[in-house]
């Protein structure tokens, strides 16, 4: 049995409890009574993957069905991978400890581009053919993927049988039901895929063929097997009625987000032009405060966690935020639960709200200012003014805070040196503000941390057409920023531009990147998002070996009338809207948020109802 083989080596590796299952809340079933087995794979380590909310939802949802069994599977850390390869331990699922190659579905969640090579590595460790075309004709081992990255899944197209677009709560079960039925009828893989692609939200890449122009851009996409010309993402209509787990798997080892998360809302009203999540998760839908509180209570009681966080793109945009927080804080105080509130926007961070939050927990303050000058913040439609940032900082400092963390991006469209210097100047003005306050925290200095990411243009945003700055340009701007900071009270950190470059290529790429990813993995690339494992030199070699020019994807402006590699996928927001927003951005004109005025992104027309 695999279990004995695994246990033999568990004490030789770091944090062995990650590899043996048995956590509280994990679900085991009698496999002789199971019709469909689903391995939910997260292409990163346990510590990261176990923090993913989508997995928790789909895990519990699938397991509600008596005859389906969803299990978890993660990428082993390099120390355990070595042992697995040496001792012929195939990649296995944590509940049954059975090899995932024997499962019906091997489903990956694609949360970030830099996890792509891990998918290949996991398939290889599992003993599943890496290319979809090499898999058996029999109906088994369906390798599928969902998550934000599959809004442009083309760089992964050769490796997957199915991509699931949008929210999975309904479509996953529909797909498993179809599988269960067809498996009993003795259907083949191809029979199944032909039927599956007729389900809304199911994209079967092998039925689509890209034809390119001489200049390398897409000429057109041909479809086969009656597959729909355009595949539309799935959404859940009513968030109050959608399934939400009453229990989570509670890990033994500490994970990145080791707490209860309760989803507050989906979508975002803000329309920040760089933000993919802000567009691909539309329409905006909220859960009612009562449902949020009931879910919080159930999860805290069942898991035993003493910390809860609210998950959303912008919690403070909930229309009933005050009542919700009042109710929640009542419960959490009584039960001695910590409440943490990420994603609070600067502009509606009121004093009364801060008071409530302060009552609960005193942690750091973080603001995503994103741009160093008002002009640039207008370009990206981050509707935050300096006055608002200063006001919030003032309230925070008067309330006893002395550390502020600011997030910025570098390499944004229309950015000039003035905008970069503006970041340092803004940080300096926050420091000046601190010392101008009479009742500032005594005995402590002020600390402003500036975290500066490199802008990565993403599909399904108004900036999808934009090129990324070249590495040389980013490095120059990083140096400029460092030189503009005159005090030790401001700490600057920034991203490796080589990593951001790979991100944009994988985000905006097409099918010609499949061999590049394969080659890079063959050369040893994996865990690309982990600084210590990232091998840019190997990626450069892979591009060269495959004759693919990375600059074509990273540093080229995609024209408005060009067929984008993701244009056959419909995420409800129209391309016309993105073009309009892109033009508005270049005029440094803002677009109001959805509650103030509908800006006509097209979602309401497709969904067939008003957003508010």
């Amino acid at each position, binding site marked *: 049995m695999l279990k004995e083989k695994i246990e033999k080596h568990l004490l030789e590796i770091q944090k062995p409890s990650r590899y043996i299952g*048995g956590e509280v809340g994990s679900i085991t079933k009698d496999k002789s009574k199971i019709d469909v087995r689903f391995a939910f794979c997260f292409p990163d380590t346990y510590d990261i993957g176990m923090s993913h909310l989508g997995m928790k939802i789909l895990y519990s949802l699938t397991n509600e069905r008596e005859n389906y069994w969803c299990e978890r599977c993660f990428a082993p850390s390099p120390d355990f991978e070595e042992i697995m390869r040496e001792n012929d331990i195939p990649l296995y699922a944590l509940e049954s400890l059975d090899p995932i190659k024997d499962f019906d579905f091997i489903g990956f969640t694609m949360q970030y581009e830099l996890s792509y090579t891990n998918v290949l590595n996991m398939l290889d460790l599992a003993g599943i053919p890496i290319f979809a075309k090499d898999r058996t004709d029999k109906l088994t081992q369906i390798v599928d993927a969902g998550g934000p990255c599959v809004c442009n899944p083309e760089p992964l197209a050769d490796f997957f049988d199915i991509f699931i677009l949008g929210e999975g709560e309904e479509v996953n079960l529909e797909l498993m039901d179809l599988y269960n039925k067809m498996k009993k009828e003795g259907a083949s893989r191809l029979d199944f895929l032909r039927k599956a692609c007729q389900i809304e939200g199911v994209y079967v890449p092998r039925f689509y063929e890209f034809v390119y122009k001489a200049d390398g851009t897409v000429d057109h996409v041909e479809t086969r097997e009656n597959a729909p010309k355009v595949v539309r993402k799935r959404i859940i209509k009513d968030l109050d009625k959608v399934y939400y787990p009453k229990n989570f798997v*509670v890990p*033994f080892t500490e994970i990145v987000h080791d707490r209860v998360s309760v989803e507050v809302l989906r979508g975002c009203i803000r329309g920040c032009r760089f933000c993919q999540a802000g567009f691909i998760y539309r329409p905006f839908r909220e859960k009612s405060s009562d449902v949020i509180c009931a879910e919080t209570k159930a999860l805290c009681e069942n898991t*035993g966690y003493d910390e809860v966080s609210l998950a959303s793109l912008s919690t403070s945009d909930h229309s009933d935020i005050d009542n919700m927080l009042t109710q929640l804080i009542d419960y959490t105080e009584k039960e001695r639960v910590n409440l943490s509130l990420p994603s609070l926007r600067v502009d509606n961070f009121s004093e009364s709200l801060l008071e409530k939050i302060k009552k609960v927990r005193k942690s750091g303050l973080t603001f995503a200012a994103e741009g160093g000058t008002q002009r640039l913040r207008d370009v990206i439609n981050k509707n935050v003014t300096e006055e608002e940032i200063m006001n919030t900082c003032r309230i925070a400092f008067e309330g006893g805070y002395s550390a502020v963390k600011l997030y910025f991006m570098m390499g944004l469209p229309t950015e000039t040196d003035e905008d970069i210097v503006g970041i340092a100047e803004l940080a300096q003005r926050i420091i000046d503000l601190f010392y101008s306050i009479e009742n500032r925290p005594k005995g402590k200095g002020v600390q402003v941390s500036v975290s500066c990411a490199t802008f990565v243009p993403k599909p399904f945003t108004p900036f999808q057409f934009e090129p990324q700055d070249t590495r040389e340009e980013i490095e120059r701007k990083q140096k400029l920023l460092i030189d503009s900071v005159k005090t030790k009270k401001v700490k600057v950190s920034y991203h490796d531009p080589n990593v951001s470059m790979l991100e944009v290529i994988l985000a905006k790429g097409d099918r010609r990147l499949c061999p590049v990813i394969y080659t890079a993995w063959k050369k040893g690339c994996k865990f690309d998002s982990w600084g210590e494992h990232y091998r840019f030199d190997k990626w450069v070699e892979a591009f060269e070996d495959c004759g693919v020019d990375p600059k074509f994807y990273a540093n080229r402006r995609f024209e408005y009338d060009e067929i984008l590699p993701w244009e056959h996928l419909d995420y409800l927001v129209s391309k016309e809207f993105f073009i309009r927003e892109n033009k508005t951005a270049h005029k440094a004109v803002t677009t109001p948020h959805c509650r103030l005025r509908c800006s006509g992104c097209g979602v309401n027309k497709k969904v067939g109802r008003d957003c508010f």
Partner: protein
Amino acid sequence: MIRLRAEFEKKGRAKYISHLDLNRCMLRTFRRSRLPIWYTEGFNPHPYYAFALALSLGFESSCEILDFNLNEEIPFDEVRDRLNAVMPEGMRIVRVWEQKLKITAIQEAEYSFSLVSENSDGLFSDVKKLLSQENILIDKKTKKGIRTVDIKPNMKIISCENNNGKINVLMRLPAGTQTNFNPNLFIEALRNSTEINFTAENISRTGIFCENNVKFE
């Protein structure tokens, strides 16, 4: 406030829960049980509970000791059952009672393990040879660095048998607030003194004792 003590098992997959993780795990178990656990009254109130001895990662045990306080009187069996209903797989409360002895009364712990080798007869004679030595010196990692210790004087062999290719050992070693010797020290000493390949399996703590062989309660 009622001061309680529980004896619990940590077996099967639960042996991969590290001591640090066990702390977190127990906190969540208490919360799931909804028992009225007593919180400390300091600046940062937290549920009070303590383990008598740390158990090495990978060891099983039938006799771990957990101390905690409750705000109300609840029958011991009910406390046990409520905890067991929400315990992770492999962990089980055997018994709950009111604390009698102080944790500092602990003097030694008993361990059982098997030494497995293709040449178990040869290994058995090497074990005997090692046990007949006057000293068993071994490097022990401490907070202050590596120190050579002699584990022989305080080591008691309860039994040591060669059984179908397996050498089954039951031994007691000093434990508690003063000196803590881990059976891995003995196993390492054996590894240094024999040329025979072997593995140590099923290391398990089987008892915790005070002076004069009195079971710690």
